[in-house]
């Protein structure tokens, strides 16, 4: 299966044969999961998102036009799902502070490097949460998924110019939060939240 292109796999699914499902899942689940998790900052919701997106992909396979990019279509579905999720008021407060931490055995790694890495991770996550959902969506798709502004515009349902502005504003905010002398950045972050 893994020598076939996305389009070829989708054509098989559209014909009624679901055997490519696991291959497609394996190709894209990581990207979808990471996007959803960084957008919603909630692992449980991210899991639900992945599940729903791929099920929808199979159930509505006929909506996929063979010449389009599968990734764009999948991210479209994901972005819509995440937006709906946030819209439900009680979900707005469920962002759990899920931080990956690593406590190595005392003498294993150079302590400074890992501490700094961990600190940065937290800072980036906090800064992302300070963005508006539109800005976050745009920057996550641009920075981490490598999508073009044209593709992001399609997914977000706005113009390319709007994407450019959103990405720029997002980077301005991130710049302020991540590069100011560390104390200043944190104080600002804490005040913003």
């Amino acid at each position, binding site marked *: 299966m893994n020598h076939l292109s996305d389009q070829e796999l989708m054509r098989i699914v559209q014909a009624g044969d679901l055997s490519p499902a696991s291959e497609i899942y394996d190709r894209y689940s990581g990207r979808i999961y990471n996007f959803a998790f960084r957008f919603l900052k909630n*692992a449980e919701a991210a899991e639900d998102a992945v599940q729903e997106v791929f099920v929808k992909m199979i159930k509505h396979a006929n909506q996929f036009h063979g010449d389009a990019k599968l990734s764009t279509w999948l991210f479209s579905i994901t972005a819509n799902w995440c937006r709906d999720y946030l819209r439900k008021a009680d979900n707005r407060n469920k962002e*759990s*502070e*899920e*931080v*990956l*931490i*690593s*406590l*190595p*055995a*005392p003498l*294993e790694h150079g302590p400074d490097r890992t*501490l700094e890495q*961990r*600190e940065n991770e*937290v*800072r980036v996550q906090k800064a992302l949460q300070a963005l508006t959902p539109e800005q976050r969506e745009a920057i996550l798709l641009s920075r981490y998924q490598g999508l073009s502004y044209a593709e992001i515009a399609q997914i977000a349902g706005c113009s390319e110019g709007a994407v450019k502005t959103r990405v720029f504003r997002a980077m301005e905010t991130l710049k302020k939060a991540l590069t100011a002398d*560390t*104390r200043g950045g*944190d*104080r600002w972050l*804490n*005040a913003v*939240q």
Partner: protein
Amino acid sequence: MRASFRIGGLAAIALLACGALVAAPLSHTERFVRDFPMEAGGSLWIENPVGNVDVVGSDQQGVSVSVVKVVGAPDAGSLKEGREQTQILMEGDNKTRVIRTVITGTHESKWKSNVAYVIRVPRASQVHVKGSMGEHIRISNIASTVTVKNTNGDITLEGVGGAATVDSANGDIHFLSDAKPSQPVQLTTINGGIEVQVSGESNLDWIAQSIKGDFRTNLPVRGRISGNAFRGLVNNAGGPSMTTTALMGNIFLLSRGGSQDDIRSVRMAARPTPNPIRISPVQANQNIAAYSETIQTPLVQGNFMYATNYGNFHIGEVRGFVSIQTGAGQVTLGTVTGDCSVRSGGGPLDLSDIFGTISARTEAGEVLVRSARKGGEIGTGAGTLRVIYSAGPLSLHNGGGDIIVNQAASSVDAETRSGDLSLTMDPRLHTQHINAKTTKGNIILNFGPRFGADIDATVLTTQEDAVGIHADFTGLTVKRDQVNGKTRVHATGKIGGGGEKVELFAEDGEIQIGQPGASR
């Protein structure tokens, strides 16, 4: 090596220790030993609500039960009654041995008894202990399954190789082993701490949960922390689960014989930048860890910002702005010269004198604001919401409970899902915009003699002939009709020559508009 790990002290446990009983004027002590045969792989069940239980696994065959029963009483009659009503039953067979202390007395009985067991069983036996009030339960050297359920008292499992489940309310739990666990272990306590010591090479799937406490370890751990729970891998995957829940205490996962210096806090690792509140010299002297239970200080010279999973705040005065986020806890603030922002996941808010704008919300609990000089947005998910004085636009929201404003010198926008709304405007006011809504309760609106307004009041009620709207003045036009099976009473009109819009809506209740002291 035993790390000290309690947070705060446990409430004093009334111990029925033998020592205490000896102080009773009369006491009687019985000691005896019973031996029973036990097959390999048999089970031992012990139920003892009033004393210690010690179980030791050995290579000897059979079960040996050694009992010390002490009864204390103020007089001979009670002593006799106590001895009779404290029974020790030993039942069962070669496969299953059941030992129970049965007390038939009541809370009012004048006597007290204590029974302590020391039991020797074959190592391969299963051991099940149910206790209530004792000083300790100790189980050691057992290779098979162990379960313990207890209320008060410390529990120690030492050298237990099988699956272990411990459920305690008020007591510490110690799980000590030289080996690498190969079976799941689940330790739960509400008001105590947990200490686990295992071989440094153990592979474990560690789940730790605590609301108030910290998770500390000197083993290599990789995992994720989310709110009150941490889940991670110790060393490598493939090992059994180690679930440790100490709701109000700390959890330690240590390597047996390892160094105390290497113990690190998991919570601190997740939050390397401490909260930026090093402002007041008073605070600089306090060693405020990220998980202080109570943050208490009389004065903060400057801004105060703090975010925590669980914490109580008692702050006298803040000469700056306040931004507090707590997952749960009480927040009490005296004077705040700047703006005041408080978010609590649950717990009461008590704000005295706030000079700036308020933005305060708790998901559950009472809110009391004595003086909101610039008004603001105040809400509770449930509980009584009371503002004594406000001089700025107020927006009040209550998910379930009454709203009371004693003196509003400003506009008020108030809504409660279920509760009464009682609003008293400053008597000197000429007019002010008011919007009050309750979907289950009454509205009482009072104002002074000079108050003018355009009133629009609606009551929806199931009582067909309800008057619905009571006013201490004339000039309201009242219309009644039926809406969806309920009676709707709608009153409109001007008072005091007219003024700002006053919109009132009460469902399943009544509206009363008037001037305090006016005759009814």
